[in-house]
């Protein structure tokens, strides 16, 4: 399906997400634990998919998504909070969609990515 990167500050979640993406047919070309590294990785590889946590240690996932607005990468937000807790910015962002981390699965990922293709 293409290349992907995972941006999240929790190593356990990154490892699980990598496996899930690979099972879903993505080639995971990199992982980042903060916003700045994620941006650098996305600019370097220009992946088709960026799985991006909203709460990062250095900056908000929304800010990272804004920076990537002009890039060819599609952004899917993930968070341990649900969408209702994220307020207006989640609704206004140009991301493909949002998946609560506890609901992340091949099906939910396909639903979000597939829904806009």
């Amino acid at each position: 399906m293409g290349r992907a990167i995972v941006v999240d500050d929790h190593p356990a979640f990154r490892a699980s997400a990598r496996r899930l993406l690979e099972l879903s047919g993505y080639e995971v070309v990199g992982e980042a634990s903060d916003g700045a590294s994620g941006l650098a990785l996305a600019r370097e590889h220009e992946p088709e998919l960026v799985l991006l946590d909203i709460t990062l240690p250095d900056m908000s996932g929304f800010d990272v998504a804004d920076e990537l607005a002009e890039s060819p990468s599609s952004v899917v937000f993930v968070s341990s909070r649900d969408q209702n807790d994220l307020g207006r910015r989640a609704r206004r962002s140009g991301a493909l969609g949002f998946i609560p981390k506890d609901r992340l699965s091949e099906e939910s990922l396909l639903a979000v990515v597939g829904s806009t293709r």
Partner: protein
Amino acid sequence: MKALRAALAVAAVPFGIVGYRILVHDLHSSPQNAVASVAVAWTFVAAGLVAWARRPQNRVGVLMTFVGYALLERKLQYSHDSRLFTAAFVFGEIGLGAALAHVVLAYPSGRLATRVERWFVGTAYTAAVAFPAAMLLVWDYPRSCAYDCGHAFRQHSSIPIAPNETVFHALDQVFKIGVYGVFAVVFIALIAWRLWHATPRGRRLLAPLLLAGVVAGSRAVWGSIHEISGAGTSDPFYWWQVTGQIAIPLALLAGLLSARLARGGVADLIVELGRTPSGGVRDALARALHDPTLQVAYWLPMRQSYVDEDGRAVELSEDGRAVMRLEDIAAIVHDPELDPDLVEAAGAAARLALHNARLQADVRAQLGKVQESRRRIVTAGDEQRRRIERDLHDGAQQRLVALALELRLAQRELGAVADPQIERILASAVDELQVAVEELRELARGVHPAVLTEEGLAGALESLAGRTPVPVEIVSAPDDRLPPEIEAAAYFVACEAITNAVKHSQATAIRVHANRRNGRFVIEVEDDGIGGAKENGGSGLRGLVDRVEAHGGTLRVESEPGQGTRVVGELPCAR
């Protein structure tokens, strides 16, 4: 002192008569000029003695009397008797040359306020004695002429050591230009400086006296200009000078009379304080002393600091204000031009009232501290809640969602080969985890919603409306951020009111208004339910009342049975 003043008053009469005779017979002055000259001196003596009697602690009276006598003594230097002339000539210029400037600059306190004034007056006294003494040493009789030079008679010094006409005239010119010219200009400049820096009350008090001083001093400036230019006499200014000199003691008397009237105000103060609440003591003192800028600071021994009537800490101002301290009770910060004795009298009259007001200020200060402490506790509680929410999000919540994802991956990898029993167990575990994560989210949200921290009240209210089972309309919400404690208080008011509407009021619609009104932030939640709610009906609302009041706000519940419920929280919010 009374006898001394009486003796001085009596002695001034023959002294003046002698002066008049010398002016008319020896100086050949016109009678009207001689009368005016003696009248100036007598006016000073009379006004000085009155001032001395009324205000024995104040030097102005003594100085005025001294000026009067110095002016009387000045007449003796016109005597044709060489010993009398010599003695009077040495000290003759003290009155007009130094003492007059001294009393004007020292009014009303009796003391010279600045180092420049002290330097000026000291130099004036020295010059007023040194120059005439030096002139007498080089007196070149019969050609030397100090006064009445057109007349045939020439006075002569009793102490000529090295008569020299050139030196004499040089000294004479320097003296006239220096003492009556430069010193007069400096004197007028000092007066102008004082007026410029005086308080409005000070200007009102000083203006008549200082105007008279300027009028009297201006003839000296005019005289020195004539001396430099060599032009004729400066006599046209004689009556101008006399008017100014008489006006000086009269202006001083007017000042004394106004002080006496103010003392009448202190008597009224005692009566007024009897029916004044302790909060009005400052106003009563300000009225009695005619000083609207007056302030009262109350001393709190336990805190070792001053507070105002409302118990707020204050610093005693040092910027040109005068401070009168009433030991262990209060300090009165007042216009420095006010008579210190008068302020002390007013303070003594108001002592009991000030003591009561101090006790009230003390109570208010303690209440203020309690209120401040209450606000800090709530703010610290909010901060703690934010931290707990973050910890839940970063800790337990992350681990649970990671575990849920792991289990899903396990489900995916086992796929069709999995034992149905294991598949059921895995599915059950995933479902249980899902529930646990949801409950944890709900708990974190209740502790402190992240959206409130990140997006403020408007975002948090939208989020709250989105998860409420009854339709909630956000009618108004602030576009910008408010102080965190105000956002938190307003949010929890809305949250509790909406929860109660859903749980107890059978509401079908809820409306929320959140906006600023006249320096306050108002959060209002109304529903169309059954009403009948009470402000103290549950611990939730009681806790909210505490939270809102801790920030200086109010919370009220309007809930007539059958007419819905309206919960209104108002919080102070300047920006």
